[in-house]
């Protein structure tokens, strides 16, 4: 009869544990990364008395979290890819804004104005007002080259800062994971439950997945290892490799700009791992900075360089618009106090293509006096418009890309490329978001808490508890009966 009490008691304990777990599940329904838990119970070891095998009630074997490591890994991968394409889309959209000319003027617009100003000037080369219009529109072209280059530069610098932030986030999370690793190892050595801690660790790994593609496994010493694909081990059991980021000089930079932030392991500062990250936000930021932006900067520099030089090539052939009395043999003086009579450049162009777009300026001569804008091929000919005609005609001259396209075509090709890239990135981002949501839904279907299910369980376990208590009450009555026999 003591057996009956014991059996009833085991039932009470099991039902209480189940109710506890159900309560835990219900209260954590909205906890991020929480996996529902279940009580594992089996029959207690039966005992044999006088040849009869007899059950001894129920035994709680443990509390498990419902978890599928394969689903978890595919979710991590989806998160990496989503962050990559999402960040790529965000950064490229910023670049796209620089080249968006639909509502307001951009380089194409002012460039067109520039050529047409020269076209108008060739109808009235002796008109002072037209000259200052030419100078103003040329100033707009210069300003727009500066705007494009400066905006590209500042996006690049913005990315530098973001990389720095990423790295310190990664370090903080890595450190957190090592702490969790140690606690989990300790608890498991004592045979305790670690479901909640493992959930927290999974959550941290998913957070890391946003920054780069992770690979996790357990080595033969049961150490939990996190490695970044292409880079190496970041966390191993209770230890982690600290990452660091700092600005590099122009020669060492991978973005083509000085002060670009490069990533390395803190213990090996000379060994740069910037371009090695795969997927995730880091790789996305680095690719946009080192490849997309750098290409655009080069293109714009090239445009500015070729544009300035070709205008100069023609402009310097003619004579400025001032009267130079010819000498006795008909020779023209080489200049007066306002500058030379011929060979004047319109733009100040840098020597090399590097940074040409930010260094493009109007030449000092043109800046100081509008009579230095050349229209005439022959001296002392205020009505001669051959130089201005030739400059306006540069608009249709295929002098870019080895003589196959005009400047406008070359620029529009760039704009088109940006548009296509952003379009692709947007599509990717949408697609990857869909895949991530799907992976998350699959995971939540397996590990997530269903309130309906828990409610049903609650009723079930409560009944079990009631019934187990009834068993004990019955045992109690039986004791009473036995004790009453003596009376």
């Amino acid at each position: 009869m003591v057996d009956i009490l014991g059996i009833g008691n085991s039932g009470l304990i099991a039902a209480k544990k189940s109710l506890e777990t159900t309560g835990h599940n219900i209260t954590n329904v909205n906890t991020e990364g929480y996996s529902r838990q279940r009580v594992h119970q089996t029959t207690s070891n039966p005992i044999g008395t006088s040849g009869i095998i007899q059950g001894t009630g129920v035994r709680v074997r443990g509390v498990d979290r419902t978890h599928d490591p394969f689903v978890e890994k595919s979710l991590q991968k989806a998160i990496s890819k989503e962050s990559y394409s999402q960040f790529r889309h965000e950064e490229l959209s910023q670049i796209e804004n620089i080249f968006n000319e639909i509502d307001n003027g951009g380089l194409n617009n002012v460039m067109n104005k520039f050529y047409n100003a020269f076209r108008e000037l060739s109808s009235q080369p002796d008109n002072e007002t037209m000259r200052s219009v030419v100078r103003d529109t040329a100033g707009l072209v210069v300003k727009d080259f500066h705007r494009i280059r400066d905006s590209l530069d500042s996006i690049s610098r913005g990315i530098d800062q973001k990389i720095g932030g990423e790295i310190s986030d990664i370090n903080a999370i890595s450190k957190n994971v090592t702490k969790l690793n140690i606690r989990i190892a300790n608890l498991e050595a004592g045979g305790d439950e670690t479901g909640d801690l493992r959930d927290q660790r999974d959550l941290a790994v998913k957070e890391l997945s946003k920054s780069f593609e992770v690979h996790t496994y357990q080595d033969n010493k049961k150490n939990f290892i996190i490695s970044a694909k292409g880079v190496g081990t970041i966390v191993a059991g209770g230890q982690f490799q600290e990452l660091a980021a700092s600005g590099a000089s122009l020669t060492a930079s991978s973005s083509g700009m000085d002060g670009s932030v490069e990533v390395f392991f803190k213990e090996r500062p000379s060994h740069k791992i910037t371009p090695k990250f795969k997927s995730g936000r880091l790789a996305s930021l680095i690719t946009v900075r080192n490849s997309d932006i750098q290409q655009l900067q080069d293109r714009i520099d090239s445009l500015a360089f070729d544009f300035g030089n070709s205008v100069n090539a023609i402009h310097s052939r003619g004579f400025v618009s001032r009267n130079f009395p010819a000498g006795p043999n008909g020779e023209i003086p080489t200049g007066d106090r306002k500058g030379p009579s011929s060979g004047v450049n319109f733009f100040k162009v840098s020597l090399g293509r590097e940074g040409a777009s930010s260094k493009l300026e109007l030449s000092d001569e043109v800046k100081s006096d509008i009579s230095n804008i050349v229209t005439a091929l022959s001296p002392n000919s205020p009505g001669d418009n051959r130089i201005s005609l030739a400059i306006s005609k540069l608009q249709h001259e295929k002098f870019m890309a080895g003589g196959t396209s005009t400047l406008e075509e070359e620029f529009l090709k760039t704009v088109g490329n940006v548009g296509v890239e952003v379009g692709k990135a947007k599509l990717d981002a949408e697609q990857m978001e869909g895949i991530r949501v799907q992976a998350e839904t699959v995971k939540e279907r397996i590990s997530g808490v269903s309130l309906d299910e828990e409610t049903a369980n609650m009723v079930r376990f409560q009944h079990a508890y009631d019934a187990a208590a009834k068993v004990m009450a019955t045992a109690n009555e039986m004791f009473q009966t036995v004790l009453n026999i003596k009376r």
Partner: protein
Amino acid sequence: MTRVSENSSTHALKYALSKGKEKMENLQLKGSTLKSITRPSDNPISNVEALTLESRIKDNEQYIKNGDYAELHLNSTEQAIEQVVEILNKAKEIAIAQSSDFYDGNIRENVSNEVKQLRNQALSIANKRVGNKYLFGGYKTLTKPFTKDGEFQGDMGKITLEVSKDFFVPINLNGHEVFFTSDDSTDTQPDPFKEVGPKDALPPELREQREQRELEEGNKPSSQSGRDLASVPIDQSEYKSRSNVFSLLDGLTSSLENNDPNFTQSLLEKFDESINRLVTMRTKVGSIMNSVESSKVGNEDAKIDAATRKSALVDADVTELFSDITRQQNILKTTYKSSQGLMNQRLLDFLR
């Protein structure tokens, strides 16, 4: 059986809602700007084409402006030539009247004053200005082209303007060809880039390539010999030095002053030649004006075509857009309705 948990259903719901909202936002942006493209990535190809069209429209506007200016210039030139022809006709009439022995010296003396006056008129026409520019000075538009003695101070410059893409017209006649003689072979459409052109901006190796190709195609414009301006062939060597308008009038004056009807008669042929030459020149100016006019019309048409095409590319189709918006609103509403059922039903509600 697929297990459904609280989070899996909220995830799915959130995703559906954010997708719907995103689409709605996009449509609303289009609705407020009435443009189907608001950024290059919306349609990269249309965007680039729209930008090209925008440039073409602006170019055409400038070509039209240039055309207007060319017309103004050519008109003034035509009028000036007409006036010179009139003067020459008057002088010719005088010469005819005075080439007989009918009048005596005194009368001829008086008539010579009238011819002097005609010469002064011709000189003032030769120094005619449009705005502050002298019409007949060639490139030297700010210096008086003719001195009192009828000496030409200008040059032979031909000012050309682009009145439609790659179509250049001369807008001036220089004083030499009008008042002296046209001894240069004048192109009706001169190549403005004979001496300097956009080609000069090309790197040397590219320029060589280009020239080689043009040579092979045989369309190098500068190598073309110009068409003669006059339809009537004139033997220029014969009257080259003497068809000068001013010296012609001077000759008439002196022949009248000297009472020399024979010489007066000998001048008649020269007058006819000069008048013929000028009339031909006027016809030429007229034909240039016609081509300017027709290219202006062409530019206007091209401008409208380009604007229409651009609108088709960039502007939103309003009816389609608003029916899209309505449809999207309905989709969103349905999503809200269906989520109401999902979110508010619990087993707990029934266990009391």
